[in-house]
């Protein structure tokens, strides 16, 4: 498929005929994989019960069954609205989501009084809430698939989305700490007992805007003026947008006290810029700017303190968590000890003591899982993430329009980068930051936003694999008629037969 995608500039000559002949929807494969994933989740829940209770209660399969029903519903929506979508995405995400729900329930059981454990209600505790959030998140994903019949329609609202994204990013920074701060990071909007993490949604909105903006400006931005060491560097005046985003991300770093989110936005922008312009120089400039900024913030934190002190603290903890193991380094130390206690094979589901690790429901869920499923289990989870990211990038490769390529590539990369930032953080590869682990961590915002991200990838992958000749009839007419007109100067736009 990739060879075909690579030759989209001359579709009529090579690409058309084989595709028309034997494109399969692969929906049955998706259903089979989904069944397999849910069977794994049920087996995982059963193992937890055997380890914790020495017996299997009659209801171990109930959360897995509820999830199966949900995902089956989504599968049916996909069958109807995006029949050619990538068949690996939903099963892979469902597996992560299911393990997340089961593990959170396992944490609830550990914290519940012994007498109540055997009869712990399905919808109680964090695990029960996560199950409910999954219901809502999958519903959102279905709505995205039903409403957005063509991903190019999104570009119509690019500026609105961009503005909305920036507002969402900035709200926590501008709110007083008591409405926005949890564990030192100002990433939240807290009203009453309810809290949302707007950055999770901002990610999607900003990416849609970046993709639209870069498709329009890619020619200007890819103009090279100087060649240094064999690499083309852009003209000074073209640096404007990248500097603007850099400044915003540094503001996020300083005022929301969060390196992870800052790295996430900036990485997202630089990579989409690179994909759009094909100029390595943007990557180099981006990396230099980011590391320069982070290092300056570190030095400023050491000397001036003030808004930079938090970042300096986190860097210090990262450099030597064991120097203050009970206070500042406590979280990271406990995370490392949890991972180390798990070792290669782990203590088995339900056999460890993950509740020792602080914030194990959220940021440190990967460390909690690592204690019980070991290095082998975590590696498997990483491979599932990698699979999702690579399938997303593959959708970007295969889709024929520039906006879709940027959107899918950006979304997939952002997901991968987020996994890198949080897993790297809890295992002391990079300084720790308050990111959620996609699909695993407790929390509705993260789950909803990431399921929407998957829905968009499904939409783009459907467009990529949909047979060209069938498209006119299969695609609802309203969106297609106007959408391409929005994309000025998009050279890879397919010439429709």
């Amino acid at each position, binding site marked *: 498929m990739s060879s075909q995608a690579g030759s989209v500039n001359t579709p009529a000559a090579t690409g058309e005929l084989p595709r028309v002949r034997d494109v399969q929807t692969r929906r049955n494969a998706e259903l089979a994989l989904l069944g397999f994933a849910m069977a794994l989740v049920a087996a995982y829940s059963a193992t937890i019960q055997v380890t914790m209770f020495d017996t299997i209660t009659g209801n171990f399969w109930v959360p897995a069954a509820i999830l199966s029903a949900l995902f089956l519903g989504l599968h049916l929506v996909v069958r109807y609205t995006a029949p050619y979508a990538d068949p690996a995405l939903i099963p892979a995400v469902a597996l992560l989501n299911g393990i997340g729900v089961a593990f959170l329930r396992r944490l609830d059981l550990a914290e519940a009084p012994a007498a109540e454990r055997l009869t712990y209600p399905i919808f109680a505790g964090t695990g029960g809430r996560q199950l409910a959030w999954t219901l809502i998140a999958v519903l959102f994903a279905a709505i995205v698939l039903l409403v957005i019949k063509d991903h190019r329609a999104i570009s119509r609202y690019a500026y609105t989305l961009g503005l909305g994204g920036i507002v969402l990013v900035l709200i926590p920074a501008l709110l007083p700490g008591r409405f926005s701060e949890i564990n030192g990071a100002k990433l939240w909007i807290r009203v009453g007992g309810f809290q949302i993490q707007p950055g999770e949604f901002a990610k999607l909105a900003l990416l849609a805007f970046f993709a639209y903006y870069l498709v329009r400006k890619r020619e200007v931005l890819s103009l090279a003026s100087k060649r240094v060491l064999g690499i083309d560097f852009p003209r000074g005046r073209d640096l404007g947008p990248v500097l603007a985003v850099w400044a915003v991300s540094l503001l996020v770093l300083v005022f929301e006290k969060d390196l992870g989110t800052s790295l996430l936005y900036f990485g997202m922008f630089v990579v989409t810029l690179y994909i759009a312009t094909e100029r390595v120089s943007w990557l180099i400039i981006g990396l230099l700017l980011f590391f320069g900024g982070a290092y300056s913030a570190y030095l400023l934190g050491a000397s001036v303190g003030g808004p930079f002190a938090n970042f300096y603290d986190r860097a210090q903890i990262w450099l030597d968590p064991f120097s203050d193991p009970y206070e500042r380094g406590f979280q990271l130390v406990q995370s490392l000890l949890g991972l180390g206690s798990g070792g290669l094979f782990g203590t088995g589901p339900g056999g460890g003591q993950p509740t020792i690790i602080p914030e194990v429901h959220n940021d440190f869920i990967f460390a909690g899982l690592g204690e019980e499923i070991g290095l082998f289990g975590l590696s498997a989870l990483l491979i599932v993430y990698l699979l999702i990211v690579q399938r997303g990038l593959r959708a970007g490769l295969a889709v024929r329009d520039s906006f879709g390529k940027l959107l899918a590539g950006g979304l997939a990369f952002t997901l*991968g980068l987020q*996994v890198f930032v949080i897993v790297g953080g809890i295992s002391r590869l990079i300084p720790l930051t308050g990111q959620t682990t996609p699909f695993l961590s407790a929390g509705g915002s993260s789950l909803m936003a990431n399921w929407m991200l998957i829905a968009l990838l499904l939409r783009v992958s459907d467009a990529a694999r949909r047979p060209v000749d069938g498209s006119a009839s299969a695609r609802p007419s309203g969106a297609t008629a106007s959408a391409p007109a929005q994309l000025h100067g998009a050279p890879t736009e397919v010439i429709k037969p």
Partner: protein
Amino acid sequence: MNAPLRRVGVVVLVLFALLFANLNWVQAYKADEYRNSDYNGRVQIAEYERERGVIEAGRTALATSKPTDGELKYVRQYPADEAYAHVVGYNPVNLAATGIERSEDEFLAGTSDALVADRISDLWTGEKTPGGSVLLSLSKRAQETAFKEMTNNRVGAEKGAAVAINPRTGAVQALVSMPSFDPNPLVSHDTDAAEAAFDKLDGDPDKPLINRALSETYPPGSTFKVIDAAAALENGYTQQTQIPAGPVYRAPTSGTDIRNAAASICPESQVTLREALTESCNTGFAQLAVTLGADKIKEEARKFGFGQTDLTCGRLNAEGLPVATSETGEIKNPDGGDDPAALAQSGIGQNNVRMTPMQGALIAAAVANNGRQMRPYLVQKLLGPDRTTSHYTATPKELNGSVVSSDVAGELRDMMVNVVQNGTGRNAQIDNIVVGGKTGTAQSAPDRKDHGWFIGFAIKDGQPVSAVAVFLQEAGSGGSGEAARIAGQIMRAVVTDAEGS
């Protein structure tokens, strides 16, 4: 745009490879270090999986484990509260353990090599066999009497210590430090509450957590005259040898006047050694020390156990509760020369002479046991989880060989019995039991009240049955008399307990 997309795919692959490599580092290479780290609470949870053994004395449980619903499966309980706190110690969740709980930790926890057979059988049964039990040598009646009499002492002393040992074996019969504390809050599984309880005790100006019987030294005052008398007897003196006394003594070179506690005590220019000890004649013993010389006094004190740095009191073939080093200190004037004034003060247990209450009991015990000083111990027996297999039974050991000859010991015993019968130690008398001893009043600091001391022994049917030291810190006037009374009560309890069993 496809080439950069593919490269982004490679970048993601590299990032995940870094994560994978780093997880290998954390979960494989560093795994053992992290698994056994001091900061790893899982080590502790594993420890609490197994019911910890019982510490008991005279068939009374002093430390037990009760099952809980929590993550830590057993909570430690100390039913005797304060009375045994300094001996038993405590085994908290996060803080450092103390006492027998610390020194016998492995046996109590069931992880000691002695209990390996039980752990192997665990592999077949799937059960967690409880840890072993520790039987202490303490006499329940003596310990509780000591605790009650100390805390209700009639001179209002708030700090102090009492030690009773069996002179023939070294078995500790009672060991009390005052003020004591309730160890139960310290072992709470609510670690914040436990830490708060610890901070409160640790910050208390009376320092209840300190074991004053073992880990603190104090000026021994007149009890040190037993050492002087022993040195004199070993150097040709007899009980009847006349030694210079008088109402006041000033050392040849310098120093302050040394007087007696009352004008009625040895105003004569000469008294017998026996009489000097009976009346606790300061001027007599100060001059005796100067006559004998610093080396002889120091050597005698060393033989009785002063200067011993590595003494512990627990199990005879293992470590135990550390005992602080008793010292005779420098007996020189500030410019380094021999100083008769310092020597005179040292002879009456002042200057730089310091001893632990345990050392006081060891002196009395050596005298009572014909000059043979036995190593003190607290652990009488280690029992396996089945409570029938014995893993250890104390076999008494000598501490410092023969401290003095049995003749000299006999003379000292005779003189000390006279002190209780006719002298300053009358409060220690017990019906039908021969009691000997020596009182002491020691200046603590110029602006503080004097310490009261008593060291002594009880002999029943010609056999020494108990040797005691009682110390009342800053007790003021009447302190040494009250110490003698408490010592008598403790020894009576020992005798009663022995008769009962």
